[in-house]
């Protein structure tokens, strides 16, 4: 049962198993373990980003392609759902339609970009995707009649997913059972499903071929695998997964705008999460996304304390100011690329770069 669920790809390290198990259990019990809106928001964001980061890892870690257009696909999914929800009104049909449309558009875009630029070098693909993604972000913020521009779109989700919906009057373990909770569990369930699907993909013969293409494209081609085809398929798959993650975010936030989905900062966040967590393993996405988002949410509080403590020292207090948390993660990022290219997960599994 467990073997087929995890596609035979166990964490392979006792500590890692405990961590992954802990994250999974915490996500499932989050509303009861950590009551409060902020922690529920954080938990939902972690679940969504695990999918997003895992889908990026499919590209970066398993296929060895650097793409900077991942937020574009994430945004296409989010905007797909947001647009149908705001034009058709809050219904599950709108959500389903928007999600499918977003995924389809993302797939077409990914196919076009892949066929167009994956024939040349990896570096070329990175540059082309960076250019296209930023043009797309600008376009979305310009076309305000369609996308709401910089302000984004605010819309309502079906009543069953809003705090106003109360299926049970009584509280369970002191937690009110409302639509928000249902929305949370919907997101956790879909995220878990998508994650397991990706785990299945990377452990299939197809996934093994991707790794072969990553390690030595020339040899893979010589054995008879068409590397362009494999790379393009991986790009499309990861784009579709990112679009699904975007739809989940759109449902959870009830708002979609360029800053939450398309910005370059989110792209860098994803990159940091993959590398710090561990490239080339799906569990790296789980660990990376969790650590990063917890740091994003709570590290700033810690740094505020540190800033207070070092107020007397001028430069140090500037360096540990809460707004500078990205500085330290950037340094950590560079160090981890040098010294732990396999990330936290690779370390725990005892691999060496």
């Amino acid at each position, binding site marked *: 049962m467990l073997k087929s669920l995890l596609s035979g790809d166990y964490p392979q390290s006792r500590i890692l198993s405990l961590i992954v198990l802990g994250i999974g259990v915490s996500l499932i019990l989050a509303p009861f373990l950590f009551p409060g809106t902020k922690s529920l928001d954080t938990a939902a964001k972690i679940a969504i980003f695990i999918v997003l980061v895992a889908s990026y890892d499919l590209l*970066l870690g398993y296929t*060895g392609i*650097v793409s900077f257009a991942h937020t574009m696909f994430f945004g296409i999914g989010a905007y797909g759902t947001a647009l149908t929800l705001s034009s058709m009104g809050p219904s599950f049909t709108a959500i389903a339609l928007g999600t499918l449309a977003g995924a389809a558009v993302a797939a077409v875009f990914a196919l076009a970009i892949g066929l*167009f*630029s994956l*024939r*040349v*070098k*990896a*570096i*070329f693909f*990175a*540059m*082309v995707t*960076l*250019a*296209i993604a*930023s*043009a797309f972000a*600008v*376009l979305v913020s*310009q*076309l305000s009649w369609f996308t709401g521009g910089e302000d984004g779109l605010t819309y309502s989700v079906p009543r069953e997913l809003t705090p106003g919906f109360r299926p049970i009057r009584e509280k369970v373990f002191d937690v009110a059972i409302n639509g928000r909770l249902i929305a949370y569990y919907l997101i956790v369930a879909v995220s878990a499903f998508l994650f397991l699907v990706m785990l299945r993909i990377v452990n299939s013969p197809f996934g093994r071929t991707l790794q072969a293409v990553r390690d030595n494209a020339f040899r893979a081609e010589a054995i008879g695998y068409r590397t362009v085809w494999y790379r393009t398929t991986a790009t499309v798959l990861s784009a579709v997964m990112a679009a699904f993650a975007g739809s989940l975010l759109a449902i959870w936030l009830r708002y979609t705008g360029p800053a939450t989905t398309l910005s*370059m900062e989110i792209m*860098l966040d994803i*990159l940091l999460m993959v*590398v710090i967590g561990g490239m080339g393993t799906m569990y790296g996405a789980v660990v990376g996304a969790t650590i990063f988002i917890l740091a994003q949410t709570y590290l700033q509080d810690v740094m505020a304390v540190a800033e207070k403590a070092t107020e007397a020292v001028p430069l140090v207090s*500037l*360096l540990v*100011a809460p*707004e*500078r948390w*990205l*500085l330290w*993660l*950037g*340094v950590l*990022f*560079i160090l981890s*690329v*040098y010294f732990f*290219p396999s990330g936290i997960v690779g370390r725990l599994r005892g691999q060496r770069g």
Partner: protein
Amino acid sequence: MSETAIRPRIEQTALFDRLSAAVPILLVPVLAVVGFAAIGDTTTWLTLTVAGLAMGLMIFVMASGLTVVFGLMDIINFGHGAFVTVGAFVGFTALAWLSGWTAAPSVLLNLAAVFLAICAAVLATGAMGYAFERVIVMPVYGHHLKQILVTMGGLIVTQQLIHVIWGPDAIHLARPQTLQGSIIVAGAAIEKYRIMAVGIGLALFLAMQYVLRATRIGLLVRAGVENGEMVEALGYRIKRLFLLVFIAGSALAGLGGVMWGLYQETITAHMGSEILVLVFIVVIIGGLGSVEGCFIGALLVGLLSNYTAFLAPKVALVSTIALMVAILMWRPQGLYPVVKAK
């Protein structure tokens, strides 16, 4: 002895081949003419063309270093934008110190202030390029994936450090007195600063061509682009050459940063990563590693974005992407692909 001595036969390239080599150069005037047809108004067209040339040349200054570094060492520096930003901030700080000179209505003092600001920026970014190459790039030679990641990390850290040093807000600074305003040429108002930007850009392009074509170091750089191992085998330390090129490229980026900052009159810590997108488009259009291609690509991008900004402002950046796609359909490696002898 018979009269029919064997003469060496020099292969004549077909007329068509020779013409097709010149086609990329013709693209710039063609684009200008098309722009003229689309705009239909001489004065507007002239203003836009000068603006486009100025923008293109500034982008060229920033992009040239990137493309040579790639050609020589097969490294694409995603942190290149950081040099642009640092150059702009250092230059602006210098100009702010020299505010007495910039506010004076004397041409000489104004130009001296700008010159000193440029020198400060070039020195700062050159030094930073040295540090960047030694600390960040050197350990990851030959690993494309790691290079992209690490240089991107360098960009993040630099941006954050700029926040620490100069604060999080955008900095505004007016251009020196005599560089403000515009002059009227044939009925069209042309900003003085743009003329200066065109002048500096062209001078740098010509100087770069001279260095690459007529000096020993340029010869080594060109040879290194074609076959680095062979240059090394002949006894030249290509690593040192590369370091030199990297520093020069960083300094050029800093110079471009000052020029761009003065052009916009506002600088932010994110300007580098925004410009990096344009720089990448230009480098891709030109062909990775080619200075001439980069020059033509920069002019095309500058002109096109100014024309479209006038005709259809919402799609300005998308139009440059469309240009990139069109060029890559035609020549998948860019206008002037660099032929590697490997």
